């Protein structure tokens, strides 16, 4: 076969494969993509049975543990709205109030149930210390941080 013709066929096959891959990728992304919502967006959009990704900060004082279930509220980053979530299972170590989390939730008649193993929190190397948070230790109100056994 003519080398140029051979080359053209190879190029066509390669481009077709690339096009198919790209099309499949775009299709899967848009069909399987789920909206990442803040608390206020979730409250506006949620429909019973719907699955969403909720992103925000764990509200201070909202964490409550009951057996294997953990209850907490996810705060909207911009507005004073929080969505209560019920999560079953072991939570990640970095999970705590005031920390950024993402969790897959299902709307069960206005109650948001967190999907097991879906709760993620930021890597602790990336927290930014709140300014002035350390001033409390300048005096000695908390005392030594070691327990003498």
């Amino acid at each position, binding site marked *: 076969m003519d*080398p140029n013709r051979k*080359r053209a066929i*190879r190029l066509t096959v390669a481009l077709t494969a690339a096009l198919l*891959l*790209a099309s*499949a*990728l775009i299709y*899967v*992304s*848009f069909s*399987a*993509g*789920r*909206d*990442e919502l803040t608390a206020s967006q979730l409250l506006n959009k949620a429909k019973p049975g719907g699955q969403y990704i909720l*992103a925000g900060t764990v509200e201070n004082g909202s*964490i409550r543990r009951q*057996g*294997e279930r953990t209850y907490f509220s996810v705060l909207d980053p911009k507005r004073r709205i929080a969505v209560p979530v019920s999560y*079953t*299972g*072991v*939570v*990640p*170590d*970095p*999970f*705590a*109030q*005031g*920390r*950024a989390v*993402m969790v897959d939730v299902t709307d069960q008649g206005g109650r948001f149930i967190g999907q*097991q*193993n879906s709760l*993620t*929190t*930021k*890597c602790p*190397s*990336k*927290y*930014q*210390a709140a300014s002035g*948070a*350390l*001033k*409390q*230790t*300048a*005096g*000695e109100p*908390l*005392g*030594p*941080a*070691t*327990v*003498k*056994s």
Partner: protein
Amino acid sequence: MSTLGHALLLLDLGLCLFGIIASVHGARRDRPDWIEAGRRAMYALAGLSVIAFVLLEVAFIRGDFSFKVVADTSSTTTPLFYRLTAPWSSQQGSLLLWVTLSSLWSSLALYLTRKRLREIVPYATAVLLGMNGFFVALASFAANPFQTTPPAVTPTDGAGLDPLLMHPSMMFHPPMLYSGYTLMAVPFAFAVAALITGRLGSEWIRDTRRFALAAWLCLGMGIILGARWSFTELGWGGYWGWDPVENAALMPWIVCTAFIHSIQIQEKRGMLKVWNVSLVLSYGTLAIFGTFLVRSGVLDSIHAFGGSTLGIPFVVLLSAMVITSVGLVVWRREGLRSEHRLDSLLSREAMFLLQNLVLVAITFVIFWITLFPLISLALTGVRASVGPPAFTPFVVPLALVLVLLTGVGPLISWRRATAANLRRHFVLPLALGVVVGVLTATLTAAGRQPFALAAFVFGAFVIGTVAQEFYRGTAARRASTGASWPHALIALVRRNRRRYGGYIAHLGFAVMLIGVAASSSFQHARHATLMPGQSVNDGAYSFRYVRPTVAVNSERLSFGAVIAVSRGGKFVTRLHTMQSFYPSTNAGDGFIGRFFDSANADSTIGLASGTLRDIWTVAAANLNPLLPLIQRDNALLTSRYNAVVRDVRKQVPVARQQAAVNNVLDRLGFWTARDVAVQAIAAQYLKHRYPVAFLVIVFPLVGWLWAGAAIIFIGGLISLVPPALLVRRRSPATQRPRVAARELV
């Protein structure tokens, strides 16, 4: 010390500017003295950066909390080992580490090429200094590691390093990743310089190939160390979670893998010049893109720095890199034309090219899915995410093709393979693959998982090809030299490190793939809430919660569980998992509550590793029964403390009140009473019989993943080590042609 540190950074910036000007001026005017000045500016940059980094380390070792970064990420109770690692736990310190490593690697590259590539080196120096200058500028003005707080508000103790970062991997994982990223800048800079000067031969590639290999090795090991660390932590998604920042490290590594293979085609056949230079420019840019994702906060990632404002500068740098790269390749396209064409699809160069296309396709898939939230936001106005499951249908089949090509590529002939060549090289490995496939399909659950089964078959095929090559090479060496098998094997590897180092890396890749396929397809995970004495089954294993445990030491309180694991009624192992609570600095927790704050806790998993499976367990300490005791003693101590403060305020001037309060508290034994109360509350944990939430996971063959990574590391090192360190003697002149002919790549 902070003033000196900041002055060093500003001096670094001046050196970068001077070096760029000197190098470009020297190249344009053909002035060797100016070119040499540019090179020395890089050496000086490296020296000053090392001094600046040592200054920061000294501040951490001394516990100088006037440094903001020291106060934010360490404390008086942080062990020395972790004070040494704490600098790179912050944005500021990690930028300084980047500059230090980058300037050191750049200096090494410029030193090794000081008598070579005379036209290319000045521009490469300018590019390297430009990239270093960018990070120095960030560290100088946007995220200064030497920022201090005024003496009046300097804390007596720091916030401490997060307990999760107190892990031996903290010493190695970030520096390895940063070394990988910064080493990638070297081939990038030389590629840009080669395109600028039009010196497009293979010389610059030959001189920087070792840096590409070192970058690939360091970044790969950094990724694996991170995976291992993540595997032993709770909540980091197992050994791989397709997190954006994990993906950001994987992408340049994959592209670098493609380059390491395709460069052989350019060296042997003078083909794929555009492709190769594009790969170098791509992984150099993707390395910066990785750090952009970490530091910009543009995507939600567990590894992204929160509240960072460095996104815009990185966008500017990335834009400059992409525009320059594309512009230069287009400008020099004539000089980059291939010297030969592909003769046959059944040839080594075709297999390498196909392997490259698969690697680039995997990179594109990862890039697209990782950035999809941004793409979706731009196109639809809504931020959507597809999550980790979206990777599987694309990455798994492509990875299987890749592993098959890993077996085929190195053995098939250059230019055109014949039927005899195919028979000679592939019959035995194919037979091995088929046997392994039949055995695993009939004896294990692999028959129900086609992708996993394919991974086992292809993995066995690759292992077969590598074993066959080692056997044949060693046998040929024995025949020609009369050496023993071990001596012949060692001599074989010494004589052709690149080829046999590559084979070893391929072997590691196959072993690793088998581990990934088995551990992801056949793992059993089970959540359960158990009382002491109760059991739960997970797959073939049974887990019994034997008893709770408590440990108190000066750093932390640990609440744990002892679990007995059995299989078919037979005892397998006993595991101990615990959750440790480190004292918080949150005054709101109270005198007692600060020792039980779950925000300052980390888990130690109970892990039993084995050749065929790992058993992984974790328990969340249930402190609910202790809360009333914590609240009671908090209130008691707070009222005592307040009484002391009231008394002191009546009698002592304001300026001396704090010291007086501390004296009275010491005299009254206040802190001793607190410690006794903490220990008494902790001891109560042993008495309560409340349920504890467990997560137990059985990972089949996950140890193969780590073993495979170690084999890849060994293979990479063999390929990387300079010949002089391995080859002591040359072959006798009479044997040289025969041996060389057999070992020709």
